[in-house]
């Protein structure tokens, strides 16, 4: 018996999302369980089955180069915006 991870797509155009897992002796049984458990009520338009051991888990999340400029929290505009507004005389309450 092997574990299979089940991914389901709820509606056309949506991404596949991890739903859960099934244990089965082979792919056909895994498909039967997955259909039964994740598609019986028409709650999925597509299912993916992936043998658990085929999943490659990316573990190294080092942030050696300080890449926060790639994220929204990498920019602290609040203080500078305030300063700019004061300089231009457009700060709230200035009018």
């Amino acid at each position: 018996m092997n574990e299979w991870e089940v991914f389901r797509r709820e509606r056309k155009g949506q991404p596949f999302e991890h739903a859960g897992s099934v244990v089965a002796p082979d792919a056909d049984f895994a498909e039967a369980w997955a259909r039964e458990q994740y598609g019986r009520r028409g709650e999925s338009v597509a299912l993916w089955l992936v043998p658990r051991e085929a999943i490659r888990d990316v573990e190294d999340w080092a942030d050696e180069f300080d890449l926060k400029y790639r994220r929204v929290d990498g920019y602290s505009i609040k203080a500078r915006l305030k300063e700019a507004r004061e300089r231009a005389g457009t700060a709230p309450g200035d009018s």
Partner: protein
Amino acid sequence: MAAVEVPRNEQAFLEYVQSGGQVETTDWMPDDYRAKLIKFIEMHGNSELMGVLPEREWILRAPTLQRKLALTAKVQDEVGHAQLIYRVAEDLGKPREQMLADLISGKAKFHNVFHYPTYTWGDVGVIAWLVDAAAIISQKALLKCSYAPYARIMKKICWEESFHILHGRDVILAMVTGTEEQFGLVQEALDRWWGPLMQFHGNPIPKGEDPMYLWRIKSQGNEEARQQFLDGYVPQILELGLELHDPKLRKRDDGVWEYSEPDWDELKHVVTGHGPKTQERLAFRKHFLDQEQWVRDIVLAA
């Protein structure tokens, strides 16, 4: 970008889950957390599996074809829930065969309400409406469980339970708008189930002392769940002209429900294997597990 690490010592882990942190199967976890999770999830799975038996008895006796189909679908859903839930417990390290063996030997428990007999179609309505309503309150609280794989499958389970409540409510509405006799069957069933329903969410242990809450396996205390049940369903019961025979039942001005002390001795007696239908239903499960052993043997040998 550094992923949030699940802390690798018990105290830090406890603080992590208490501040809303979630844990995945492959993360480190304290032994006590794993053991409590397995115990809790296993009992939930057992309850789904045993919970279909009182309803199964009524598939052949359902009053109309539409009710028969709805009841069959509900039974199928609940067995499906047992499969999803056992899978989560299995991934935590307890083999399914062992869980089924512990269920049948009486070592593992299942919910009190599934130890009682059903007498009429009124019982089926009350189970589908109110027992499921009580259960969905506990299950919705599990959507925030600190163990993420369990929380995820709960989404699907709650979605299906919402059909069951509607089905139950429809059964009840059909009966209370029917003949006097039909109305009477609902009232009698309600009288039978009210005690077990009041016991359902467990004794009012303060949540700070409840290990399941401490580890954030549950996100609410027992009494909180019972209050939510009373608040949601007492008005719905009374508006149908049904009666609740508890002289102390009332909602205080501060919104808290008062009620007669549920029979905690009965609860303990029933869930430890002494309910009126406990042994018969376990024997039924055992019979089918034995009878279908050959199927599992073939599948495993495939």
